[in-house]
Each structure stands twice: as C-alpha cells, then as structure tokens.
C-alpha cells in the first residue's frame, strides 16, 4: 500500500510520540504501519535513527549484539535490520567489519569482532567471493573446480573452528547461490560436475560443519534468493560500482531472515498457534453449510484449505502447540472432526479448544491460562479483520496474523514470517503435544487428590539430575532461551556457552528430567552453580512451566545443597532478577529458608542460605536419581 506524504508524516509523529512516552505497544504499532507502507527503506532509516536515540531505560527492548562480517558491502542492511528488529522487541546493536575483512576478524584474537563481544555473528559470503573460479563466465586456466570447492569447504571448517575457540557467540553462515548464468548454458544440467552440482556440494559441506559444531548455523541464503528470484535479488550495477550486490528491495528480506535467528536466540520463538475455523481451516461457515457442505476437498477452493491444514499439521509435527478459538456451535465443530473425511487435522491435534460466542480475546486468554503459555508466545490466525483487530487491541502481546483474502495465499502467510523457527529440534519438541496431554492428566490428578502431599505421592515422580552431554546440550540451551516464567535470572545461553560452562570443574551444570505415572516429561529444567571457597552461587535455575507446582524446584535446591556439602561449602547464594514474566520464581529462595542478603550492593534481590542449619532435603515423595558424566 502506498500512503501519501501527509499520512506518512502523521505516522512518523505518532511513532516518535509513543517512543518518547515509553509506550512500546503503541510505538511498535506505528512502526509496523510505517514499515508496511512503501517505500520501506526510508521509513526504516527514520525508525533506526529514532530507536538509536531512544533511552534504553525507558523502552523494555531486549538488547542483542550482532556482528556482520561479509565478503561484500552489507552495511546497507543496517537500518532495515534495526527497524525490523524493533518490531520484534529487539534493540539490535551492530558491529560492522570492513568488507572482505572476515578472515582477519575471525583469526585475530584481538580483532574488533571479539572486542565487541557479540551475541551473534553473521558471516555473509557470496560464492563468487569465496570460490571465484566456480562463478567465472570463462574457464579459468588449469582450474580444478572440484579441488577449489574442497578447499573452500576446508577454509570454512577452519574459520568455524577458529571462531569457536575464540568466542561462544552464535555464528550464522550464509550458504551459496548457484551462478545466475551457467558457463555451459543449457548443457550445465548434464555436465559432470555441473556448476550447480559444485555449489550444492559446498552447501552440503556447510550443512555438515553446522551439524557437527555447537551454535553454528546455516542461513539459507540460497533458498532466500531462490524464493525472490536471482534476477530480482541481485543488482549488477551496485555489485560492480559499490560492491553491494543485493538490491534495495531484497535487503529487508535478508534482515527478516536474520531476525528469525535472533528471535530464537532471545527467547522470542512462538510456541502456540491458535486458529479460527470458518474460512480459515475450511471454506464457508459450518453453521450454515453443514459439516459436509464446507469447502474442503480435492477441488478449488477446498484444496487450498487442505494445503493450509497440512502446513498447520507440519508445524504441530515440529512441536508447535495447536489450539482453536472459534465462534460456532460446538456440536457443528465436533461433527466436522468426527465425520468430514477431508479433514487433515484431527480433534486431538489440538491441545485446547474454545468454541462458543465469547470475544476471541476472551477465548485466547482462557487458552493461555489452560496451557500455561504466555500470550507473547501465541500466534493468532483469523480471516476476519474485525476479529484480528479485537484480539490485537485486547491482547497486544499476542502476534496476530490476519489471513489474505484468497485461501491459496494462506500457506505463505503462515510460513513466511518464521514465527515458530527455533535453532534446534529436541525430542521434547517432537513430543510436545503428548507432553501437554500428560500435564492435563496430572492436573486432573491434582484436582482429585485430598491434599497437595497426596497429589505429589500419587504422581510417583522420578527426578533425574544429569551432567550436560552432547545429547542434551541442545535441549539445555533451548530451555535457557525459551523459559521465561520459572527462571530466577533469565540468562540466555547458546549451546557453545553451555558447553563452556561445563569445562570448569568448579561449575555445577545439570539438566533435570522428570518422569511421573503418566510418562516421561523429558528434560524440563536446568541449573548452573559455581563453587568458590566456602560458597556456592546459583546463577541459573529454571523449570518448564509444565512441571511447576510439583516441588521439583525443591529437589533442585536440595541437589545444589548436596553439591555444596560435598565441597565443604558453608553457604549457598542465589539471586532473583525480576522480569515481567518471572513472578512464579520470585519467592523460590524465600520459601526455602534463604535469608535476604543485605551485604549485596546490587539492586537484584540476593539471598543466601547458611548450610550449618542442615541444608535442603529432597522431598520424600519423589525418587531422585543422580547420574554422573
């Protein structure tokens, strides 16, 4: 949409005013409208300057430090990256290395890169800069292209290893696009090897490097360019004149791709997808057309809704929790699930269902409470703009995704933003829906029990403490990135940072697994403590909301207490760093007998426990297993 100058001016003033007032909800809303108008680049520059000047104290943004290393001029992305990051609640702080300086920056321990102490580093390389011979239009003399690809893969391996030795930050490496024009023209496809094959081989090697290391990931640049089309992506003029090969229109797309990673790193990955039904999962209104009359089947438009249901089902298979918020007669909806054979999604794919005539925001609040998922981690999808508006205003924390008018565009609308993208896929992710079902069964048991203690005993819990190893590091890092409620300090760790913590023998780094009579909940907690002299200090202690309220946290403190006793320590210290969401963890130390520590000068609440009084005991109603590495 194009807005005229005066409307744009008004939007700018609204944005600046909200920013000055420290009203993040309103500022985000105006920034979103500004960025949804054309032209995007100038609006991005405007927002970037305003955000740069805003006071960090007044705006509760999550700061993330990003270093950009590249083989070409990538600095033209800065404004878009900062402005789009703002929409995600991020304050993106940038370090820009000179173009082509990526080797020196990574290899030199004293480089500006490491001095900047980044959270994430992007290594943006164009294939033609890394393996020039492979991209030339003429055959280079005596070129061995196979050898050149092997050499490039070797260099990437070395750079990744050198980086990992020097930094625990997350490294994001672009993969490579095939040459736009093939040297052999129409024969390239059957050449052995073709240029396209050689680039694919290099990408396969890069995938392997990422798989075999911790906290190094592939940015699927080739996929991004392919979606846009190489001819629309590249600007030959700027490539040759300013070494800036990416067109103006494509830069924000690249920024959006980076932000998928940055959101995952900062705990902003969405967990739950709430769907409307009529004209969303199927065409038409079930109350009018009947369970068999709705548009769903092999013919258009029914096939578009089937496509969309498959995309939703794919997300569920990745671990996204599904829910329904629909204004309908419940019996009609149950009838569709029971009798319409074209339904891809089944009733039990949904962990919460609200069908009735309440406001949608009311249904969403109920779903959030039932699943114990914060509204920030929910995405709401609806075809009706009025419903979308109602939810957006009543629950600004929920991400609202209004569907486009035609159902053939639903899949793109759902998948393009990458709301649910995460940096690892754990067994817990794949079993998530099942785990929520177990939680529901446990809650039922709680309701039936005579007393809390009776409930704990009937749960038959087994709590296992284990050191972090290769099989659990991804889950441990993911928990630090995603857990917001029962989390005393909310310190986020990358996989590499978790492993780094494990190397110090004075550190206690443990995962917590909980089994109960309903099944294995998987790894649901992480704790980290550091022993020094006569003290043990807990800096990280977190627990998935699925198992809050079962005294697992008491067992965790008992475990630290046991560790402290083994070391001969006399005191355990811990602190609470309050956030908007960690209310459930605030009284952890207090209710376990810790004393408020007035000697601590920091503003965070510090607590300490004198172990001479006996320390903390494991609850008697659970079996505790302590694994050693």
């Amino acid at each position, binding site marked *: 949409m194009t807005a005229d100058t005066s409307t744009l*001016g008004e939007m700018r003033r609204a944005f600046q005013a909200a920013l000055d007032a420290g009203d993040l909800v309103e500022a985000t809303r105006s920034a979103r409208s500004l960025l949804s108008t054309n*032209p995007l*680049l100038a609006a991005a*520059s405007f927002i970037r300057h305003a955000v740069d000047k805003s006071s960090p104290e007044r705006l509760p943004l999550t700061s993330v430090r990003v270093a950009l290393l590249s083989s070409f001029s990538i600095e033209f992305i800065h404004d878009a990256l900062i402005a789009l990051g703002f929409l995600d609640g991020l304050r993106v702080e940038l370090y820009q290395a000179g173009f082509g300086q990526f080797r020196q920056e990574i290899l030199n321990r004293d480089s500006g890169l490491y001095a900047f102490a980044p959270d994430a580093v992007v290594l943006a390389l164009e294939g033609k800069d890394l393996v020039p011979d492979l991209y030339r239009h003429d055959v280079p003399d005596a070129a061995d292209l196979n050898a050149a690809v092997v050499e490039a893969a070797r260099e990437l391996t070395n750079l990744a290893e050198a980086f990992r030795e020097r930094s625990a930050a997350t490294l994001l490496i672009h993969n490579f696009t095939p040459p736009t024009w093939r040297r052999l023209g129409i024969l390239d496809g059957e050449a052995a090897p073709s240029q396209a094959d050689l680039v694919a081989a290099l990408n396969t090697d890069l995938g392997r490097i990422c798989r075999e290391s911790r906290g190094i990931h592939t940015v699927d640049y080739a996929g991004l360019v392919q979606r846009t089309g190489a001819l629309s992506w590249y600007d030959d003029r700027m490539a040759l004149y300013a070494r800036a090969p990416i067109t103006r229109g494509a830069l924000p797309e690249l920024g959006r791709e980076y932000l998928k990673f940055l959101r995952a790193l900062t705990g902003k990955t969405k967990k739950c997808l709430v769907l409307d039904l009529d004209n969303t999962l199927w065409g038409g209104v079930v109350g009018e057309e009947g369970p068999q009359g709705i548009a769903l089947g092999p013919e258009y438009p029914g096939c578009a809704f089937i496509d969309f249901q498959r995309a939703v089902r794919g997300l569920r298979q990745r671990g996204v929790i599904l829910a329904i918020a629909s204004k309908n007669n419940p019996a009609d909806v149950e009838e569709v699930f029971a009798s319409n054979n074209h339904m891809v999604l089944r009733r039990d794919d949904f962990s919460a269902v609200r069908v009735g005539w309440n406001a949608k925001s009311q249904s969403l609040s109920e779903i959030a409470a039932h699943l114990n998922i914060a509204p920030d981690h929910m995405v709401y999808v609806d075809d009706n703009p009025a419903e979308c508006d109602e939810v957006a205003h009543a629950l600004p924390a929920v991400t609202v995704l209004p569907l486009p008018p035609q159902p053939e565009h639903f899949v793109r609308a759902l998948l393009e933003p990458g709301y649910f993208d995460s940096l690892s896929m754990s067994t817990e992710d794949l079993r998530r829906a099942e785990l929520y079902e177990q939680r529901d069964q446990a809650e039922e048991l709680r309701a039936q029990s005579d007393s809390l203690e009776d409930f704990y005993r009937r749960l038959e819990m087994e709590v296992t403490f284990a050191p972090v190893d290769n099989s659990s590091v991804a889950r441990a890092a993911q928990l630090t990135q995603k857990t917001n409620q029962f989390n005393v300090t909310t310190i986020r760790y990358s996989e590499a940072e978790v492993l780094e913590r494990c190397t110090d023998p004075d550190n206690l780094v443990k995962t917590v697994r909980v089994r109960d009579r309903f099944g294995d909940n998987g790894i649901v907690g992480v704790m980290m403590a550091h022993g020094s002299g006569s003290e043990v200090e807990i800096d990280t202690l977190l627990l998935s909301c699925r198992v809050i309220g079962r005294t697992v946290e008491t067992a965790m403190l008992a475990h630290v207490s046991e560790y402290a006793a083994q070391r001969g320590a006399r005191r355990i210290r811990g602190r609470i760093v309050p956030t908007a969401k960690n209310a459930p963890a605030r009284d952890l130390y207090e209710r376990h007998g810790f004393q408020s520590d007035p000697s601590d000068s920091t503003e965070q609440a510090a607590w300490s426990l004198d172990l001479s009084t006996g320390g903390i005991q494991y609850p008697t109603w659970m079996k505790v297993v302590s694994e050693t590495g």
Partner: protein
Amino acid sequence: MEQKVKEIMGDVLDLDPQAIDGHTAMDTIESWDSQAHINLCLCLEQDFQIAFTVAEIEAMLSYGDILRVLREKL
C-alpha cells in the same frame, strides 16, 4: 517532488527536512558520507520507482543536483 526528496533525505541523513535547501550538499553535511550516499540513492530509487545510472549517482552530490537528475528522469 521537492517535499518527498526532503523527507527521504531527512530520514536517511537524519536531518530536519525543513532545514534542507540549496546549500545542503555532501561537502557540508557530516552524516552524508559515501555509504549514506548509496543508501540515499537506493531510497530515492525505491520511492520514485526509477533506477539511476552510475553516472547519475556520482552526479547527485547536493540537494540541487538530486532535483536536477530527478527532473531529467521523471
């Protein structure tokens, strides 16, 4: 067109659009460095839906130059 150019220059160079006039040039504005210049050209291209040649990019060194090049193209 003048107003739109001023808005874009204001956004990219972090200037008050009202203060942009014939004296506003790469030589006199500190924030208008070579990187900002490319950025500015890209934004003008996007907004006016045109494409500059390299010669035009190199010629647009002041507010006046920008208006002149744009008038030739539009």
